[in-house]
């Protein structure tokens, strides 16, 4: 039997790391190394974060952000995946649209917020639309990339057995592109959160965790609220990303080369 070294345990070390940071921040705040007015005590922040769970206003803000995020991602998939298949399987259309796409893609989606604010009166619609615009790119590009990666031999085999175009698409291209699409959606989900919260910050007046931060900015202990809300946003980001990773691993266990395209 080999001796078990406690420092080999990932969970234990990770917990120690988190606890260590907490203690360092707490001690630095209490001894005055960091002014608690500039950066509140770690225990205060954690207490505030815990209190937010029962804060109805905060919860409805979280629900609004997540609602826009989910709806935006849903529309994105419904739009970008068929578009990716269309562009991927029609090379002439793809080469015609490529210059347009190459120009649209580098435009930072945040820059569209001032324009969207003027066009949309409903802040929720605006948020969803901006999310769709920003999240479409990784899904579209991953779909097209995955389609290029489809085994030509498998397609030829099906064709020589007399299967039609749609059968080839449905039985070969879609399953072998699916892991790439999933990666694209996972990347898009992080971008969707960034864009959604930015729209809330800049738009104001609407619901969402971005607006929550904006509204608590006037308080004397604003930083405490800001960090507590950021902690929950981090938890949301981590959980959603983790769920996507988990789903990818379960659904695409057969897919050996899970390649990432950014």
């Amino acid at each position, binding site marked *: 039997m080999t001796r078990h070294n406690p420092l080999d345990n990932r969970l234990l*070390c*990770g917990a120690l790391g988190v606890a260590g940071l907490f203690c360092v921040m707490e001690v630095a705040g209490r001894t005055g190394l960091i002014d608690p007015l500039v950066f509140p005590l770690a225990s205060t922040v954690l207490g505030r974060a815990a209190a937010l769970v029962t804060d109805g206003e905060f919860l409805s803000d979280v629900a609004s952000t997540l609602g826009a995020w989910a709806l935006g991602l849903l529309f994105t998939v419904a739009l970008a995946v068929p578009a990716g298949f269309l562009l991927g399987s029609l090379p002439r259309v793809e080469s015609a649209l490529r210059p347009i796409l190459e120009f649209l893609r*580098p435009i*930072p989606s945040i820059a569209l917020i*001032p*324009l969207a604010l003027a066009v949309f009166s409903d802040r929720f619609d605006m948020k969803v639309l901006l999310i769709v615009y920003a999240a479409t790119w990784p899904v579209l590009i991953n779909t097209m990339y995955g389609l290029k990666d489809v085994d030509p031999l498998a397609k030829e085999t099906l064709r020589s057995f007399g299967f039609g175009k749609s059968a080839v698409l449905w039985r070969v291209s879609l399953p072998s592109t699916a892991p790439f699409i999933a990666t694209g959606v996972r990347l898009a989900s992080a971008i969707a959160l960034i864009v959604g919260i930015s729209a809330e*910050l800049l738009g104001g007046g609407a619901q969402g965790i971005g607006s929550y931060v904006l509204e608590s900015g006037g308080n004397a202990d604003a930083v405490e609220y*800001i960090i507590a809300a*950021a902690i929950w*946003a981090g938890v949301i980001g981590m959980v959603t990303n983790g769920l996507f990773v988990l789903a990818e691993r379960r659904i695409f266990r057969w897919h050996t080369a899970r390649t990432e395209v950014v």
Partner: protein
Amino acid sequence: MNGLLRGAVRLWPVPVVLLLWELLTRGIEMLSFPPPSQIATSMYTMWLTGPAERLWLTDAALTNIPVSVGRLLSGWVLAGVVGIVLGVALGRSPLLFRFIDPLVQFARAIPPPMLLAFFMALFSIGPRMQISFIAFGIVWPVLINASEGARQVDRQHLDTARVFGLSGGERLFRIILPSAMPKIFAGLRVSLSLALILMVLSELVGSTDGIGFQLLDAQRSYDFSGVWGTIVVLGVLGYVFNSAFLAAERRVLSWHRSAKQTT
């Protein structure tokens, strides 16, 4: 010449789309959707109507664009240095990795806009706040990629280096960093495009100059061709940054591809 001509022919959809867009926007006559010709005129007056001895650049072009690009690049370089140093340390020390990894995973999951208010409270409005906000928001792809790259260094290379008596520093600069380089570059590229987004965001919220501020200014004065023009400039900036980065990457990593081929 032939390639250039073919490239120009490949761009045929651009004028077609521009023409359709012009006709459509002239047809609907909406204030927030000006025709592209009007956007082009407004871009010209915004940036290119200065005195001839300054290459016709206006004050707005000479202040806002360099200021924004400076902030973006400072934040990116800062994030690059911090990300590579910390990432390589994490990648080479499994123990350190086990302690810090949960914190890194958590910090990178926080959507950067949530922290904008925090950075504003910490540094008040100004370049210091913007640069630190950009750097904090974009450091994670570099850090994580650098740590992956440093962890996956070929054992054989490291053992060979040890046998030849290379010191720790030499091993770092001759073996570990070069072999982590492709991953680090991938991270730097993601960070660069994220830096543009965060630069615009930080200037939209807390700034008195820069391209983002100009964008907000145009929106507040209902100058929609100015808004569109600024968006176009930001798109061009993004395109230029990405192309320049890809060109640099090809140059720096060209040895890597040829080295891979011989093994």
